[in-house]
C-alpha cells in the first residue's frame, strides 16, 4: 500500500497560505534586522554579557537544531526500521529536518561576534573542539539528508534509499550527541559536566522534532484540503506520548544524579527551589506545561480522536522545550562558578553571584527570524517539490 503512495506539491491558492508565507517572510526580515543591528552596534545591545555569554538566540538555535534531528525520525522509522506506515511521510520528514537545521544554523552564525568570519570557521579546525566537530556534523547532515531525499524521490534509485536512510539515522544520532556534548563537555560548570546530556538531547530531539512535524503536517494538509485519516494522527500521538515521557524520565535521572553528589546541592537548589525565574520555568513551564499536561492530553481516553488536543499537546511540548533549553543554557550559566570553595566571593565582575540576564528585543528578533526562516523554507519546498502524499487514508486492515 505504501508503495502506491502518490506525492504532489501543495497547490492551495487560499489566502491563508499566502498570508502565512508573507508573515513568515516578514519574520525573516525582522531576524535579519535584529542580527544586523547587533552586528553593527556590538553585542551590548543584546541582553547577553560577560556572565551570560549565550542567551535567547542560542535557545532558539538549539531548539531548531535539536528538533531538526528529531524531525528525521519518521523517515528513519520507515527506512531503517521498516515501519511501512511511516513511509508516506518520509520525504516530508527529511525536508523538514533540513529546513529546521538551516534556520538554527543561521541564528548561530549571525549571533557570532564576527559573522563575517564564516570562511574562517569553515577552514580552521581544532579537532579537539566539539564545536568544530559540530560544524562538520551539521554541514554533513544537510548533504546526507538531501541525498537521502533525492534517492527516495527518484524511482530508479529507491533501492539506495535504505542504506542512505541508515547513514542519515546514524549521522543524526552522532549530531545530537555532539549538540548535547557542547554542554556535557563543559567540566568547569556544575550545571553541565555530565555525559547524560548527550542521550538527553537525543530524546529531546525525538519529542521536539515530532511535535513540530505533527503541527506542520496538520497545517499543510488542512491548507491543501488533503485527506488525513485519524488513524495516522493516532499513531503519531502515541509516539509523541512515548517521547515526551522519555524526556521526563531523563530530566528526573539528570537531577537525581546531580542531587546525589553533595557538591551539586547548591546548583540543584538553584534550579529546583530558589532560582527565581529558572525555578518557575522548571516546575511550571518545563515539567507542568511541557511534560505532564501534554501527557495527560495524549493519554486521556476521551481525547484520543481529538485533533485539537493533539495540536495543543504539540504546542505545549514546544513551549516546554523552550523552557527546558532556557534553563539548560541560560540557567546553567547564571549559576556562579565555584572558584573559591568555603569563601564568600565578591568582585566587580559578578563573581559569586547569580548572573543577570534580560533578553533584549534584538536578540529575540534574531531567534524568531531563524524560526520563521525554517518554517518558510519548509512551506516553500512543499510547494515546489512533490513531498507530501496526496492523502493519508484509512489503512486497510
Amino acid at each position, binding site marked *: 500500500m505504501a508503495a502506491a503512495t502518490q506525492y504532489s506539491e501543495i497547490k492551495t491558492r487560499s489566502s491563508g497560505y499566502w498570508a502565512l508565507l508573507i508573515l513568515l517572510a516578514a519574520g525573516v526580515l525582522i531576524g535579519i534586522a535584529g542580527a544586523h543591528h547587533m552586528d553593527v552596534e*556590538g553585542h551590548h545591545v543584546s541582553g547577553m554579557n*560577560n556572565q551570560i555569554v549565550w542567551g535567547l538566540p542560542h535557545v532558539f538555535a538549539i531548539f531548531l537544531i535539536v528538533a531538526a534531528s528529531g524531525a528525521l525520525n519518521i523517515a528513519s522509522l520507515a527506512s531503517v526500521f521498516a515501519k511501512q506506515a511511516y513511509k508516506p511521510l518520509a520525504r516530508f520528514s527529511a525536508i523538514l529536518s533540513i529546513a529546521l537545521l538551516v534556520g538554527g544554523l543561521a541564528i548561530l552564525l549571525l549571533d557570532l561576534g*564576527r559573522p563575517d568570519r564564516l570562511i574562517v570557521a569553515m577552514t580552521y579546525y581544532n579537532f579537539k573542539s566539539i564545536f568544530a566537530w559540530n560544524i562538520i556534523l551539521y554541514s554533513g547532515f544537510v548533504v546526507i539528508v538531501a541525498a537521502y531525499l533525492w534517492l527516495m524521490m527518484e524511482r530508479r534509485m529507491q533501492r539506495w534509499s535504505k542504506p542512505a536512510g541508515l547513514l542519515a539515522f546514524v549521522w543524526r544520532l552522532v549530531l545530537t550527541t555532539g549538540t548535547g556534548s557542547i554542554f556535557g563537555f563543559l567540566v568547569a560548570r556544575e550545571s553541565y559536566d555530565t555525559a547524560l546530556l548527550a542521550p538527553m538531547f537525543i530524546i529531546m530531539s525525538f519529542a521536539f522534532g515530532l511535535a513540530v512535524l505533527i503541527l506542520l503536517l496538520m497545517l499543510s494538509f488542512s491548507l491543501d484540503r488533503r485527506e488525513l485519516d485519524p488513524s495516522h494522527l493516532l499513531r503519531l500521538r502515541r509516539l509523541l506520548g512515548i517521547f515526551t515521557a522519555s524526556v521526563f524520565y531523563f530530566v528526573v535521572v539528570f537531577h537525581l544524579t546531580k542531587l546525589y553528589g553533595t557538591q551539586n546541592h547548591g546548583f540543584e537548589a538553584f534550579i529546583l527551589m530558589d532560582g527565581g525565574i529558572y525555578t518557575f520555568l522548571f516546575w511550571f513551564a518545563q515539567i507542568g506545561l511541557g511534560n505532564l499536561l501534554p501527557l495527560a492530553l495524549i493519554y486521556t481516553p476521551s481525547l484520543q480522536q481529538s485533533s485539537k488536543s493533539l495540536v495543543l499537546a504539540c504546542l505545549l511540548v514546544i513551549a516546554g522545550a523552550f523552557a527546558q533549553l532556557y534553563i539548560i543554557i541560560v540557567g546553567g550559566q547564571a549559576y556562579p562558578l565555584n572558584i573559591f570553595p568555603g569563601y564568600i566571593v565578591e568582585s566587580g565582575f559578578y*563573581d559569586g553571584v547569580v548572573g543577570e540576564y534580560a533578553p533584549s528585543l534584538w536578540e529575540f528578533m534574531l531567534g524568531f527570524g531563524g524560526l520563521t526562516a525554517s518554517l518558510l523554507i519548509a512551506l516553500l519546498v512543499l510547494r515546489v517539490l512533490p513531498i507530501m502524499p496526496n492523502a493519508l487514508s484509512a489503512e486497510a486492515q
Partner: protein
Amino acid sequence: MKNAAETELPQPARRGFLKGAAAAAATLVAPGIFLYRTGQAATSLDNEARWGLLIDTNALSEADVDACVSACQREHGWRAEPGSKTDAQWIRKVKLTDQETGHQKFLPMMCLHCESPPCVDVCPTGASFKRADGIVLVNKHICIGCRYCMMACPYKARSFIHETLKDQLPVAPRGKGTVESCTLCVHRVDRDGANAVPACAEAVNRGERKAILFGDLNDPQSEISRRLQELGGTRLRADMGLNPGVRYQGL
C-alpha cells in the same frame, strides 16, 4: 638556555627604530606588526621556559589589588565602568571572606595560563592557543566570537568585546566581536624574557617585596620556583588538573 627564546625574537633596536622613526605611522601599523610578531614568536619559541606568576595574597592590600587593575588598564588600554556587565576585565579585584572566621582578603584574578587550558580545547578555530612558553592567548585574526571559551573557562578569565573600541594601544590590539583576556604582558615577556615584569606586578612590587612574582616555572633555580619550593602555592580549582601557571600564596 631559557634565553634561547629571546634570541629568536626581533631585536629591541629594530623595535626602537620603528617607534622612533615614524611614531604616527607606527601607531597605525603597529597592531598588525605586533600580531605578526606574536605569531612568529609562537613558532620560534621553545618550551624550555614556562612563564608563570606567584601571587602572595598576604602581601596585597585592597589598594594594591586596585593598583594592579589600574596598571593593567593603562598598559593595555581597557576600561571597565563600575556596574557594567559587558565591559571587558582582563584582571579583577576579588574579595574573599572566610565563611567561618570572617577573615577577609583581596586578590587579583586574571587568566591563569593553564598548562591544559579548557579554552584552547573548546575553541573551534584554534584562535585560543597556548604558546610553547605557556602563555595562553587569543589570535584576533581567527576568533569568530562564539564565546565557547568563556563557557569553558573555570576562572571567568575571559571577556567578550561588546562595543566598538576607541583609543587602542599598539601593544594590545583588540577587536569588537572577539574574546580577550590577560596576555601575561606578552609584549614585555617577548622583550625582556626572564627579566620581564608584567604591569600588575610592577604596580605592587616594591624593592625586595615582590607580592606578584613573574618567572620561569620550569627553571628550578628561578626565584618563583624557589619560593614555590619553600612556601608552596595554591592552584585554583586544582581538582580540575589544569595546572595553572598563576599560583597563589596565603589562601
